[in-house]
């Protein structure tokens, strides 16, 4: 198997948004492109499809010129038929290929929910394990510049609800590469959700192929006064909040879950055992979302550790507005995390 001899790394060396160390660095989209390139190179069953993957913008650079290297049969543009083409990807996966279907925005995945939820997620179970569906669906959350209600949704809460899917949300370039490799090598359908605001992020990315195991979160910053669990871009906001809170003497532990399905329950419970306080910061609506699931998990399994109410930082229950004034009011950030921590920390 082409995926058996990959270096497995769990800990990202030297995560630092603004680090000046002398290591090889890539931006988030460069790291994704490198992962796709190396996957295409390693495994001939892998192919990449999506609207605009072979255009001059190459999906924000993440697929740039891959069609020139691997040909139009393995890297190809798709019609605007999200449900049909998701079904095509699922069918190809069932028949032994390893498709990566790239979408500009998660909003468009709503058109493909029948194939994702009714088909991809159920094919292994429904047929008693006789068939499987090794499929990766990538989508990039938008934010700002008036992108508004239908170009800024995150929607991972919907996917987290569905058994049979895996759900990956990287927040660093290093993780983006390692987790995309793991996703492509996985034998199950994986929803891989990126955030456009992470695309400027640069971090150390080794050139060699490496894989980050699913279900393993990472402590981005050690602390003892409160735990902040961040999802996707909110990990960055959490780190900013922790830096500011440190000025007032609070030591905040920041956890990056990296995958929501499977969820690293242990890393959250261990941290909460130490801090007794939990804030969950998400890039999605609070109601019925990933934060609710994590909070419920801690209430069930870590009730004795909790010394204050669990706080959730996320979107209010309205669609995303266009006006920048309203965008500012809508999106939570480091300040909201700071306020939440201050309300529950000593």
């Amino acid at each position, binding site marked *: 198997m082409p995926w058996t001899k990959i270096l497995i790394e769990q800990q990202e060396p030297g995560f630092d948004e603004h680090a000046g160390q002398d290591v090889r660095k890539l931006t988030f989209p460069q790291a994704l492109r490198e992962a796709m390139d190396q996957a295409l190179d390693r495994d001939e069953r892998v192919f990449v499809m999506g609207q605009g993957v072979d255009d001059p913008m190459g999906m924000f650079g993440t697929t740039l010129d891959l069609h020139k290297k691997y040909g139009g049969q393995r890297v190809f543009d798709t019609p605007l038929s999200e449900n049909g083409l998701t079904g095509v990807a699922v069918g190809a996966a*069932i028949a032994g290929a390893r498709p990566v279907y790239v979408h500009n925005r998660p909003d468009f995945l709503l058109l493909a929910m029948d194939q994702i939820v009714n088909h991809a997620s159920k094919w292994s179970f429904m047929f008693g394990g006789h068939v499987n569906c090794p499929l990766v669906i990538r989508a990039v959350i938008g934010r700002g510049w008036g992108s508004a209600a239908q170009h800024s949704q995150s929607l991972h809460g919907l996917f987290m609800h569905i058994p049979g899917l895996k759900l990956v949300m990287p927040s660093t370039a290093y993780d983006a590469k390692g987790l995309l490799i793991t996703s492509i090598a996985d034998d199950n359908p994986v929803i891989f959700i990126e955030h456009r605001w992470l695309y400027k992020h640069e971090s150390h990315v080794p050139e060699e192929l490496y894989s980050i195991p699913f279900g393993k979160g990472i402590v981005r910053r050690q602390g003892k006064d409160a735990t902040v669990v961040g999802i996707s871009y909110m990990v960055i906001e959490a780190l900013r909040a922790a830096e500011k809170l440190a000025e007032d003497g609070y030591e905040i532990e920041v956890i990056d879950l990296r995958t929501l399905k499977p969820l690293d329950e242990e890393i959250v419970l261990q941290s909460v055992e130490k801090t007794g306080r939990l804030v969950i910061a998400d890039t999605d609506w609070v109601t019925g979302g990933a934060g609710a699931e994590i909070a419920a998990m801690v209430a069930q399994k870590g009730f004795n550790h909790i010394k204050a109410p669990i706080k959730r930082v996320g979107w209010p229950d309205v669609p995303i507005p266009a006006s920048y004034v309203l965008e500012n009011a809508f999106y939570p950030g480091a300040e909201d995390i700071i306020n939440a921590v201050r309300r529950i920390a000593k």
Partner: protein
Amino acid sequence: MTDHSGIPTEILLKLYVIISKIRRVELRIESLYHEDEMKTPVHLCLGQEAISAGVCATLQTDDYVFSNHRSHGHYIAKGGDLPAMIAELYCKETGCSRGRGGSMHLVDTSVGLLGSSSIVGGGIPLAVGAALASVLRGDGRVTVVFFGDGASEEGVLYESMNFAALKKLPVVFVCENNFYSVCSHQTARQANNDISMRPRAFEMPSSRVDGVDVIDVFRKTMDAVNRTRSGKGPSFLECRAYRWRGHAGAGDNLKSQYRKLDEWDQWMTRDPLQEYEKALVAGNILTEKKKKQITETIDKEIDEAFSFAQASPLPNEKEVTKYLYS
């Protein structure tokens, strides 16, 4: 009935065996369904047997077939393991889907049956995707997808036909028009009842087929399969036959409330098995002796499949989460 001259006797008899087998399996299921031991909604294909038989007889063992909720005929015609199918209807661990799928989700990867979707039209893009995988591998396989007249109202069919035609994929779309979606007639649902004209918008060859006439099904499918296997792209067949039973379960208690009875009477004069049998007897291909022999062999096979299924163990309740992930 279309002339069968030129088709080897061996194939003609095989078609007869398959139609008979589907017919007799469906009748057996129906006769035992009242026992409530097959605890899964069955969708019988009585009246439509010639479509499964005629289409699948043109395929090789490793060609792919995607099916739908009315899946029994496709499974049998493609060569799926009968005891495993019946065990699936009994929701047993020995079922083809280990009791996780039921009647609507039959699978047998050893003969290219990669699964069936009970979401109307859901299997159509899967077939196109399997055909795409075949092209990437260059394995020469053809994929067939069966769906109904109801699925011809789903947008995903048109998305799938467009992409298959665009990429010239080796897939044959087989629409089984049995005129009913549950109790709703095609004329109540479709602005233009000629389903076979729609693929032409994608410059895809398309034919209307007499789905009661197995030779018509066989010949037209053979043309489509040969064409697509040689790299000329997809084809579409609208096979018309009548659903003899209700949408699901045994019999059709509501028949008089939603069918026009003159329509019913007219279709009842056309039995795919009887018509074919008559033609084979007239052509000296089938004798009474041979017919009896075939019937007995099938019935023995069915007896054994039911005995196997009934005696098989149920799934272990501790394994309710098994097979979620691969």
